[in-house]
């Protein structure tokens, strides 16, 4: 294991406006500069140094504790003012470096704050039970002509045809859901569905979407209820999460 350096650093969670409401937040410090406020916390460098981070990230307990801390700070900040979430693990060695970052990115942060002010992010996941979907697609099993070999081949061909149909229908359902939900949102992102080994569910994730909506706007939820009713027969279930800080709409993504 590589020796971690001693000392502390400044972990930046997010950037908001110079809003006095931010000073109510507990457990964090604020670095103000040119109308912007960085929400920061002093952290031991030993925890976050580049040399030790890859190892830490694969430590579930560490990852969970720190990811939750990151989210908790952003939620508390987003509850009182508009905030641009920064990605996990953005760390500076001094307050001056944070100030310089605010100077350099002032225009970009300003533009993003303008977009997210008064809005929240909500997440929608759609899950599909493939067996239910297959039943809705099932045509009759036509009687097979010819001998045993021919019957086997026909069965194989039908199976392949069936799995192509399932894939096409899944793509259609996901596309329809995302497009209908997007029409009720200011901005929308379809993220990669989470892998089934990690979700631990027997259904597959069809859609992993994030939508930016005006605070208190109920239209997306109503659209979702409509979709849930229409798609239930095809084996699709929907799940709504949020409101989240606008992680997916924080500007430049990589």
């Amino acid at each position: 294991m590589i020796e971690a350096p001693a000392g502390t650093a400044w972990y930046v969670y997010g950037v908001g406006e110079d809003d006095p409401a931010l000073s109510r937040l507990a457990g964090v410090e604020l670095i103000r500069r040119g109308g912007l406020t960085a929400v920061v916390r002093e952290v031991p460098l030993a925890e976050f140094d580049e040399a030790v981070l890859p190892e830490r990230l694969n430590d579930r307990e560490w990852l969970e504790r720190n990811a939750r801390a990151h989210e908790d700070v952003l939620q508390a900040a987003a509850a009182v003012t508009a905030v641009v979430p920064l990605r996990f693990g953005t760390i500076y060695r001094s307050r001056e470096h944070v100030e310089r970052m605010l100077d350099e990115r002032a225009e970009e942060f300003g533009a993003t704050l303008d977009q997210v002010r008064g809005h929240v992010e909500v997440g929608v996941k759609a899950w599909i039970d493939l067996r239910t979907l297959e039943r809705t697609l099932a045509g009759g099993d036509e009687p097979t002509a010819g001998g045993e070999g021919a019957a086997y081949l026909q069965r194989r061909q039908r199976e392949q045809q069936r799995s192509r149909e399932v894939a096409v229908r899944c793509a259609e359902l996901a596309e329809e859901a995302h497009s209908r939900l997007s029409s009720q949102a200011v901005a929308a992102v379809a993220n990669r569905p989470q892998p089934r080994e990690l979700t631990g569910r027997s259904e597959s994730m069809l859609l992993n979407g994030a939508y930016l909506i005006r605070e208190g706007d109920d239209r997306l939820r109503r659209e979702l209820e409509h979709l849930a009713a229409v798609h239930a027969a095809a084996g699709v279930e929907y799940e709504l999460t949020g409101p989240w800080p606008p992680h997916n709409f924080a500007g430049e993504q990589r």
Partner: protein
Amino acid sequence: MSVAERRPALAEQVTLLDLVDRVLNKGVVVTGDITLAVADVDLVYVGLRLLLASAATLEREAAG
């Protein structure tokens, strides 16, 4: 038709996976003195997968 709903304010109900998806994979990227190079969340997924697999094994062993 009801829609399952989870509010992140109830921290324990937000899965680690949802957190990783947002906190590590999203948010604006600015170059810090130390910037976590989670350019691809797959790296974290790989780690999680191993951890979950080993946790499941431990549980099975404990139960058996």
